[in-house]
């Protein structure tokens, strides 16, 4: 098999798998920090219980996020050594800073948080979870700074046959980063919020621990609604930015072969034929693409054929059109999932304000349970659109994916690692799902019963069960 293809599949599977857990960790850490803040300042025990119960899910999830993150950092050197040589001078810096600033903070303070309930003062313990949350945000910032360089390279010059950094400040104020970071972060917060809201809805449906899960639901639905709306706002910003900086990606996401009329209509769906470079069975909404691209109801959007011609003039002969169908549909799946999140959030918040969460219809609570998957789907499809839509480049305009791989690594080696890592991911996913269900079924008050049981030294079995 083709090593480039294998390395790409390897990267995709690792990154997609890793990025199921990362947003959950970012979102849950923030929500738990809010819960513990309410415990410390309001003094109500239920908030401590909330922090601990949701904390269990965070820890299981965090572990998988951490271990797949190691692979994430190593694989640039393992599979993409020519890429690493070419951009390491620029791209390595944010990765090193991420480790130094974020990984140390997260890992140290999550340890203090887990084991520190009885050894730290309430406020220092609270500070620990806020520092974990801050660490997750910093981690996102630096890795997205690196990714933004791949989307829109800035702050460098070509020297000694490679990209060398010449303006660090430009790298961290990259326009791409300024839209990509909030879009991703609010998406991550929404992911955590929909997880908490969905699990709470399930427990409310089962009529278990009503007070506990009503409070959890209320907090999560507020955060979920606000962040879902902000995701959409920054998504719109990012789309406008892409029209300027990576027009090919946006044209592919719109399935736009020819330059559009003015004002440009938005294609809701289409049957795309990349070989003939044309669409059939299109359904269009007038004016909408102009609005999405420029926030006004006029303006044409340049199509892929014209861009291909421009890029051939600029970069030499080659195929500069990314896989159109994948880019087109991943964009639509993301937008659809995001829209569903906003609708669910609106209805949930309305129920909360009318204090009718307990009486919510079973249909709605089931939808919230299914809704846990919506942000996860949106996150993945959003990244698929971003990364596939940038092809054939790894760094836009600078180096292609084909020229990025490790020349000294055989296809067999990549295939071997692909198989073992995919197998491990499958096992991890299954175990995680099992443990999540188990923790959720046990509920927040099970542990107390365990404790009483276990503290009886004559009950040997119970004693061993906790140790």
């Amino acid at each position, binding site marked *: 098999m083709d090593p480039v293809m294998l390395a790409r599949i390897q990267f995709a599977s690792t990154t997609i798998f890793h990025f199921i857990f990362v947003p959950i960790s970012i979102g849950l850490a923030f929500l738990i920090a809010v819960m513990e803040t309410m415990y410390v300042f309001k003094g109500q025990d239920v908030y401590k219980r909330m922090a601990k119960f949701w904390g269990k899910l965070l820890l299981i999830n965090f572990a998988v996020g951490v271990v797949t993150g190691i692979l994430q950092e190593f694989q640039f050197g393992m599979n993409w*050594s020519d890429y690493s040589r070419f951009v390491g*001078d620029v791209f390595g810096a944010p990765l090193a800073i991420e480790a*130094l600033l974020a990984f140390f903070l997260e890992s140290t303070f999550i*340890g203090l948080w887990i084991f520190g309930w009885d050894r730290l003062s309430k406020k220092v313990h609270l500070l620990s979870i806020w520092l974990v949350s801050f660490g997750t945000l910093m981690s996102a910032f630096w890795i997205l700074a690196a990714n933004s360089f791949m989307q829109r390279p800035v702050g460098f010059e070509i020297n000694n046959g490679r990209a060398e950094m010449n303006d660090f400040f430009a790298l961290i104020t990259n326009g791409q980063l300024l839209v990509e970071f909030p879009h991703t972060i609010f998406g991550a917060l929404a992911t955590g919020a929909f997880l908490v809201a969905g699990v709470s809805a399930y427990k409310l449906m089962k009529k278990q621990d009503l007070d506990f899960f009503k409070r959890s639901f209320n907090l999560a639905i507020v955060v979920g609604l606000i962040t879902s709306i902000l995701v959409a706002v920054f998504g719109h910003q990012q789309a406008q930015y892409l029209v300027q900086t990576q027009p090919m990606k946006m044209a592919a996401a719109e399935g736009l072969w020819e330059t559009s009329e003015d004002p440009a209509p938005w294609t809701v769906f289409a049957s795309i034929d990349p070989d003939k470079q044309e669409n059939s069975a299109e359904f269009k909404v007038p004016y909408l693409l102009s609005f999405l691209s420029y926030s006004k109801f006029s303006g044409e959007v340049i199509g892929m054929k014209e861009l291909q011609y421009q890029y051939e003039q600029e970069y030499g002969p080659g195929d500069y059109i990314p896989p159109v169908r994948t880019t087109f549909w991943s964009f639509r799946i993301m937008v659809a999932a995001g829209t569903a999140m906003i609708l669910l959030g609106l209805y949930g918040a309305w129920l909360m304000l009318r204090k009718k969460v307990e009486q919510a219809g079973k249909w709605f609570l089931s939808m919230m349970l299914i809704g846990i998957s919506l942000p996860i789907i949106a996150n993945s499809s959003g990244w698929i659109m971003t990364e596939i839509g940038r092809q054939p480049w790894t760094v836009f305009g600078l180096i292609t994916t084909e020229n990025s791989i490790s*020349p000294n*690594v055989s296809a067999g080696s990549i295939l071997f690692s692909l198989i073992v890592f995919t197998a491990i991911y499958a096992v*991890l996913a299954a175990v995680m799902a099992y443990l999540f269900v188990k923790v959720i079924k046990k509920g927040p008050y099970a542990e107390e019963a365990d404790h009483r049981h276990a503290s009886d030294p004559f009950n040997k079995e119970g004693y061993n069960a906790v140790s």
Partner: protein
Amino acid sequence: MLSLNEVWFVLVAVLFIGFFFLEGFDFGVGMSTQLLAKSDTERRVLINSIGPFWDANEVWLLTAGGAMFAAFPNWYATLFSGFYIPLVFLLLALIGRGVAFEFRGKVGNARWKKVWDGAIFTGSVLPPFLLGVVFACLIQGLPINEAMEMHAGFFDIVNAYTVVGGLTMTLLCLLHGLMFTTLRTTSDLQERARSMARKLLLPVAGLFAAFGVMTYFMTNVFERRGGLIAVLLGLALLAFLLGGYFMSLKRDGWAFGMTGAVIALTVTSVFAGLFPRVMISSISQAFDLTIYNAASGPYSLKVMTIVAVTLLPFVLGYQIWSYFVFHKRVHEKEHLEY
């Protein structure tokens, strides 16, 4: 005054030394969960003794990797692509171990625990062995061509010298972990950790001596920097003897410091032997990777220096504080699950 290239070589070395010193003992404790613990409760006590620390210790490795990427992209690219298969196994081991700490206690079933205990043990033995092999390879030299690409066959990586290097590192970590156990546990478990450590002294000394002698005959590091390396290894030997002496006095804290010093001095001598090279080509000296031809440009190094100098004091500060918070020993009778 050191040049920035030299500063970053030292920083990468410090990160690896810190990693082996810190994660070294939690690898050792991970091995002890099978070699020392006799019951499930003891196993849990051992795991909890490193519970708050192991994750942050592992970040030293990640940061070392990140620092190599940023400061010496060619070193990072050549090393990580060249050692592809060993790194796959290293990653598998670290993945299994990391999740096992979290997963094992979540289900009360004996077979479930056995599986994750297996992952903890394997994940604690394999990484120090593999990294020991990799570091031995680094000073032995590797087939690196004029394009800085390493095309290593099986025996370039696995041979008598590198295997002895791997075993030495593994046993040093076990010894170091046993000393850590004496500091964090009580009564019977603590006593058994001491006695196992004493029994290990001779085999470790044997391996260590073998590795030193083989290094003298099979690599060129002594020709390059013989004086310095002799001093470092002499100090390591002294620390080793003092470690044994403190063990016999049951001065566990000092003994732990000494096993840590042996590890730190050994890793230091590897970096000293390399300098100013970072990877040695067995094809031609002209193809060696050095702190100059593998490095980032001066601007990038300057930025990274400022960042590192600003952040490192905080990192060290809160990590040391976390050890202070958890200085009490772990007792069997306390609530061990979380």
